């Protein structure tokens, strides 16, 4: 018998970026921002700067432009990362000054490899005390990062001898912020293209904020439940912020601003220029909508993308 009632309830979690950062990012917190080159939550980082957060521990695999900006704005006391560079475009000026010369002040840095970071998220999301990985044997990284430890497997190795393996500890950020293409109002979040480690970073966190290009109707999400990488039960806030990943990209929405990546190496090299940039583009805009407007429509047309639609699949309907 076909059922006639449906109960799509559950709380609406939509809030402004300002409100979400105010509610979920406290001074001194451990804040994870994930997105591997794609869907970098830049707008969230800018709002953290605008609200003047201090003493944050930032956790991010690829510490790139938004991290350099947050460091320059004085938000960051410690960085946990596996790649500290401006993608393919050069250097992070502020980060290098901090680490090479402690100018204007030191920055604590915990260094991993990419998979070490992935495994920290896996352990955190699965509530495991550690996660094993076949990395670090012979590396100098354990000598500068005491979190990299070893355990002995209780099973013999391939050669019959006891086997040791490195492990990493879980990371459980106070809040994880990710950017995604779309979600429904309750936080069922859909992403496509590069999806990185965002789902695990969300599950590892105490609170999770999902920033999206657009809120879509429940029916859109529910037409393709396998596309939902982060279910509503793991999400605390949904923020609508179109173009919030700039200068990174959102597959199918806008392309990467490669020119800005290249420019950042020059901007960040000069502390004065960097601070001028922050004054103009972050402190000087009320919110990300202001930043988007300031860039102008002609600019955004340059990053526009055409259409390449996925072929629909049939989920089936009981006859």
């Amino acid at each position, binding site marked *: 018998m076909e059922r006639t009632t*449906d109960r799509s309830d559950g709380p609406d979690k939509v809030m402004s970026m300002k409100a979400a950062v105010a509610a979920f990012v406290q001074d001194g917190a451990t804040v994870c921002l994930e997105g591997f080159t794609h869907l970098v939550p830049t707008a969230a980082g800018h709002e953290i700067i605008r609200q003047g957060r201090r003493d944050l521990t930032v956790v991010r695999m690829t510490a790139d432009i938004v991290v350099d900006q947050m460091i320059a704005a004085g938000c960051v006391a410690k960085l946990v990362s596996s790649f500290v560079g401006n993608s393919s475009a050069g250097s992070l000026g502020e980060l290098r000054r901090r680490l090479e010369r402690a100018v204007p002040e030191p920055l604590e840095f915990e260094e991993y490899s990419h998979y070490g970071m992935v495994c920290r998220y896996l352990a955190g999301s699965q509530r495991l005390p550690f996660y094993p990985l076949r990395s670090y044997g012979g590396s100098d990284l354990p000598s500068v990062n005491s979190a990299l430890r070893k355990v002995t497997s209780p099973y013999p190795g391939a050669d019959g001898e006891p086997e040791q393996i490195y492990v990493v500890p879980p990371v459980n950020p106070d809040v994880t912020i990710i950017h995604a293409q779309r979600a429904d109002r309750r936080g069922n979040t859909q992403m496509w293209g590069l999806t990185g480690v965002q789902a695990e970073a969300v599950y590892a966190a105490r609170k999770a904020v999902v920033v999206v290009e657009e809120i879509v109707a429940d029916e859109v999400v529910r037409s393709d439940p396998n596309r939902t990488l982060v279910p509503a039960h793991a999400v605390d806030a949904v923020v609508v912020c179109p173009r919030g990943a700039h200068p990174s990209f959102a597959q199918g929405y806008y392309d990467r601003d490669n020119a800005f990546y290249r420019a950042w190496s020059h901007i960040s090299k000069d502390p004065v220029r960097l601070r001028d940039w922050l004054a103009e583009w972050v402190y000087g805009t009320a919110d990300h909508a202001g930043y988007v407007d300031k860039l102008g429509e002609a600019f955004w047309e340059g990053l526009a993308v055409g259409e390449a639609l996925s072929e629909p699949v049939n989920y089936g309907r*009981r006859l």
Partner: protein
Amino acid sequence: MSAAHEKESALTIPDGARTGGDGPAAAATGAGTSPAAAQVTSSELLSVVASRELAGRRTVFAGIGLPTLATELARLTVAPRAEVVYESGVCGAHPSHLPETIADAVLITGAEAVLSMPALFGCVLQGGHIDVGFLGAAQIDRFGNLNTSVIGDWERPEVRLPGSGGGVEVMANSREVFVVMRRHDPRSFVRTLDFCTTPGPDRALAEGIRPLGAGVTRVVTELGVLAREGVGDELRLVAVHPGVTAEQVRVATGWDLKVAATVATVAPPTPAELRLLREDVDPGRVYLR
């Protein structure tokens, strides 16, 4: 086939109605239900009582059958925001028809999310996102430890049962566990399990493993409700159905069952609860027969 073997899984309550022999008459003549409950089937009674226990809970890990009925009813009454997460990986199901298994195609079409097994067991369950897990068992002991593996010896069992499924994980990782046992008798409520498939937190702690949740906190049966606070606590009788005495429950229990200072009488299903259950939750009476 033993009663114990009728279970479909550790996550599914044995539903006598589905193998016949447990209609309204059985409930009315069985354990001395009150006249008011005489029109209420055992399935309806257990669903209603279990639903009330879900007040304030959000995420429920449940199998098909009574746990789903209870949760759906709770969504309409005491726990409007409760969400069922299915062992198959479905979150936020909106089925067009009442599902027949936890993997029914109608649970997937129109769902909010479908997760892989590693995500479901690793992130959702072990990650600590489940408030209440529902479990069934062939045997339960006074601490809420469960046997779903064998009757008799594991090596050469008298009855081979399906085994854990995800039961071990539901117990270890849910904040609390509800058990619904249709039959309340000394073969099921035992002093010593033939085999402990699914340990509660006391057994885990004894081995030095720290569990997340409280283990079994509620056992809803045809006779009443047993409750337990958490680590170190034993199940004790806290409520009986109308017409059932505490002594009847003690006799039906294979260990020296503790009885609460005040044993409540379970309020019979209200007309409103029954109407919702019959007309809205399971209008086809797939599980309510």
